């Protein structure tokens, strides 16, 4: 069996009920069912998770390095988007 024929999957784990799934890493597998089993073996040996998601890496649409100017820079000069920009009136008290 050659690795080139296997697909790459991204693995997301939820460590506790109520928390979000977090990216744990990636692995190769034949299909999504096998990816789920390998995710269990590779990433949850020490009770790291109560739930696993696997997603084909190819199915993830990711922002590109080249996009960062147009995507992220414009927010740099908009400090009013942050709560810390505003003075809180004394009457409001501690927030």
């Amino acid at each position, binding site marked *: *069996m050659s690795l080139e024929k296997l697909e790459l999957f991204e693995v997301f784990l939820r460590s506790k009920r109520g928390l979000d799934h977090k990216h744990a890493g990636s692995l190769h597998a034949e299909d999504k069912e096998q990816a789920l089993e390998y995710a269990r*073996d*590779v990433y949850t040996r020490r009770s790291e998770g109560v739930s696993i998601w696997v997603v084909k890496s190819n199915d993830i649409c990711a922002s590109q390095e080249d996009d960062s100017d147009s995507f992220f820079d414009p927010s740099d000069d908009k400090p009013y988007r942050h709560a810390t920009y505003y003075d809180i009136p004394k009457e409001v008290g501690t927030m």
Partner: protein
Amino acid sequence: MTSSTETVSTQDIIDYAARLGDDAIVIGHRLSEWVSKAPFIEEDVAIGNVALDFFGHARMYYTYAAEVSNKQNGTDDITEDNFAYLRDERQFQNHLLHELHKGDFAYTTARQLLVDVYNKHFLEQLKNSNDETLAAIAVKAAKETRYHCRRSKDWTLRLGDGTSESNEKMQLALNDIWGYSHELFELDDLEQRLVDAGIAADCTLIKADWLKEVTAIIEEATLTVPDQEWAVRGGRQGYHTEHLGHLLTEMQFIHRSFPGAKW
């Protein structure tokens, strides 16, 4: 299950726990031989995990056998290591299927299917043992075994219903090992005594369920259940194939060369 335990000796319990430990450690060792040699690294990790599960089961059985031995002999120095490392081939009483060579990946998969489905049904029986320790071990081992079954079914379908080459290799493997499956369902005098006392699992009761489940998976994988009549037996009496001696040599070498060595 309620008959008296008078006919059962402490030695019977020790021997029974030890042979269940033998099954687990021998198959665990065979699986461990794939580490660093599996088809790809994810499978390497996964098959190593399963091997470790089996070593865990072996430790539970051997530790229990050691505990009962110490009680019987008034000693405190018999441990699981005595059972794993200081017994010879004739004293091991694992089923022969477990000790057969590692083979190719199809061979390992075919054997694992038969063993895992067997364990699933066997442990369900052992959970009802009126020996509390054995029943507790069965409960713990059964959880891991359910996962092992899922893996071996998955691989059987993948290889059987894969390419013509993988299908052929799976079929050859099944044909090669089928004759070793019969002794899994036979009771010798020791186990019959323990079954009568409600301690041992009655493996004769699970053959029909095992065959039904294994047949369904084999057929779904577009493979054929071998109909060979030949059967090999002897593991429970300590009569082994040529494969066990080599396995024990490798497994016991360190302990016998450096007695008492610790990590």
